[in-house]
């Protein structure tokens, strides 16, 4: 890529600044185009806008501001775009960003379809993708690329955490309410396998069309099955309506709900009266320790956070991921993709989000996850006081091993 014109003075400033970093062997053109540009590609108004969306953009901006707004003496810019949950819009935007707008790295991409569409574009142009929102395990499995990092969670981690731990807590018979498309079915299969491996039984499942407003029929079937646990292998509005109507039909509290893809924004919109007692797995909870509380408070009080919401795991993960990226750029002395991604994979992450997390050769960030249970209204002492953390699931148990992921890049070696 052509370097833009820089006058002598600013070139000198860069050289002096770099000398001050004492980075060995760095030239003045270490940062392509004189700027590090981060593109946040997310769902700004659709299904996932509350769990990612504007909050994701904010998290990235905070990460850049906290880093000082500059890396290697060059400004860091944040741009964002709405992918509208459409794979073609996502890949076209990414292509334009990389080809015309000097964007160095594309982040978030909530919704697996958009992530899988952008990853090959980025790999072809040697740009890094840093995914926080999407869930499918294929991202670091059969569809893995050399320039991608899957940072926050994946289906396997959610299914495995909730499935195994709930069986251990005595919930040994399950019934699934599953969204009738690839995502739901794979979530159900993954979880069912874990439940059986942990000694539980699966009594049945019902598959519903995506975006069904009314779940009473399915809940009646779940009720009739007599299972102790009702696993919800669906997402978004479907999960919310399932939970709400489960309470109405008296499914809960007799049977326990297990959310396989539930975010704190969902619990917030449902209220505790409907969601209390539900088990779920999360990568992040704002009230876990002093560090998470401090960061989450800054996020919540930020003037750009219009809804004054606490961060979801997707947003917190994105902050951590972008910070890790900027540190890697600084350490590598360049924003070129190859050395930076090598550096990111070689350095363990240590911050409020990830305690000693490691990014594997397949691009999956393996870190601790948490099994949580939603509090009852009586247990909740303050706004957003929603989860009881039941257990920390260590990284090695929380995520699939590199071998299990079957990423072709790794297999070749």
């Amino acid at each position: 890529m052509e370097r833009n014109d820089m006058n002598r003075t600013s070139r000198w400033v860069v050289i002096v600044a770099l000398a001050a970093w004492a980075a060995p062997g760095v030239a003045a053109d270490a940062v392509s185009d004189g700027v590090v540009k981060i593109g946040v590609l997310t769902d700004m108004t659709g299904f996932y806008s509350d769990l990612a969306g504007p909050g994701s953009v904010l998290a990235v901006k905070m990460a850049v501001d906290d880093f000082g707004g500059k890396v290697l003496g060059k400004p860091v810019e944040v741009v964002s775009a709405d992918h509208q949950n459409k794979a073609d819009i996502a890949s076209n935007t990414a292509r334009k960003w990389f080809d015309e707008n000097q964007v160095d790295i594309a982040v978030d991409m909530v919704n697996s379809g958009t992530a899988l569409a952008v990853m090959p574009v980025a790999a072809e142009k040697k740009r890094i993708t840093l995914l926080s929102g999407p869930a499918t395990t294929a991202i670091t499995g059969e569809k893995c690329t050399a320039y991608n990092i899957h940072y926050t969670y994946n289906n396997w981690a959610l299914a495995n955490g909730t499935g195994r731990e709930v069986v251990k807590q005595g919930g040994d018979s399950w019934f699934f309410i599953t969204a009738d498309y690839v995502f739901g079915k794979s979530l159900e299969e993954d979880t069912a396998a874990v439940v059986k491996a942990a000694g539980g039984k699966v009594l049945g499942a019902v598959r519903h069309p995506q975006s069904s407003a009314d779940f009473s029929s399915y809940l009646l079937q779940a009720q009739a099955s007599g299972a102790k646990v009702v696993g919800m292998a669906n997402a978004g509005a479907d999960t919310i309506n399932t939970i709400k109507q489960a309470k109405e039909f008296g499914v809960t509290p007799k049977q326990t709900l297990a959310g396989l893809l539930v975010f704190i924004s969902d619990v917030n919109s449902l209220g505790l009266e409907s969601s209390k007692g539900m088990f779920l797995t999360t990568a992040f909870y704002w009230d876990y320790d002093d560090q998470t509380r401090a960061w989450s408070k800054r996020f919540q009080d930020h003037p750009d956070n219009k809804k004054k919401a606490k961060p979801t795991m997707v947003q917190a993960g994105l902050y951590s991921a972008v910070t890790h990226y900027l540190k890697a750029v600084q350490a590598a002395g360049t924003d070129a993709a190859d050395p930076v991604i090598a550096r990111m994979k070689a350095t363990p992450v240590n911050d409020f989000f990830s305690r000693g997390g490691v990014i594997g050769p397949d691009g999956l960030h393996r870190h601790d996850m948490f099994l949580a249970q939603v509090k009852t209204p009586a247990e909740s002492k303050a706004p957003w006081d929603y989860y009881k953390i039941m257990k920390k699931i260590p990284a090695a148990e929380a995520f699939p091993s590199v071998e299990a992921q079957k990423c072709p890049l790794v297999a070749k070696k």
Partner: protein
Amino acid sequence: MQALFGQLLVGLINGSFYALLSLGLAIIFGLLNIVNFSHGALYMTGAFVAWFGLERLGIGYWGALLLSPIAVGLLGVVIERTMLRRLYQLDNLYGLLLTFGLTLIIEGIFHHQYGNSGNSYPVPEALQGGANLGFMFLPRYRAWVVVVSVAVCFASWFVIERTKLGSYLRAGTENPRLLQAFGVNVPLMFTLTFGFGVALAGFAGVMAAPIYQVSPSMGSGLIIVVFAVVVIGGMGSILGSILTGLGLGLVEGLTKYLYPPAASTVVFIIMALVLLVRPAGLFGREK
């Protein structure tokens, strides 16, 4: 067998929502010849008015049951007076396009303001809990929905088909100019009819608020099914839309029990079949 009975009852509950919404559409189409695509958005608006009333003004469910339809009805009056009125002379495709545009605007505003996860609306205290019928647990609120919807539907039908006011309305559809010659204020009648039709949508919105999440997209999924109901029942047929709404709820409930993955398509399969055999709909008249 017990499970089947439960599913049928649940189907009837959904059917009563379909009936309530398709009734409003049928009244508007029957009298004004307008295909009101914004019906779903106004249903959503009704639910939001209820939620807003509770959150900000402290008006509970019972107040909302009155307030929401009035608010949505007034909004409808404004829409009719300022926009729809200009389209009566044109092909009804224009009305459809206008109301479709309105839908996008209304839903866009709510999306922008309230995000997508929606808000929770509690079941009113008097209607919490439920009864064990032996074959299923019936939440009291759902029973209330069925009773009230059916009552409102048949009251509307009675007014239109069996009273003097209704006879004016029906005459207005046949020959508005002649009716005006008899001294009836036809434009006002059209305005009020549209207002009443969408008020029914607002009413359905309040009924739905405690069951579903009050979210900006709650209307867009429902409206397609409701249109299918109107088409099956016969465009503009009042009784047809009520009976078809209830009937299709039952069919859908049955499908959810026998073969759940087809639950969202069964209504459209029936629509296709009905259009093949009786293009005017089950209760419609050929013009």
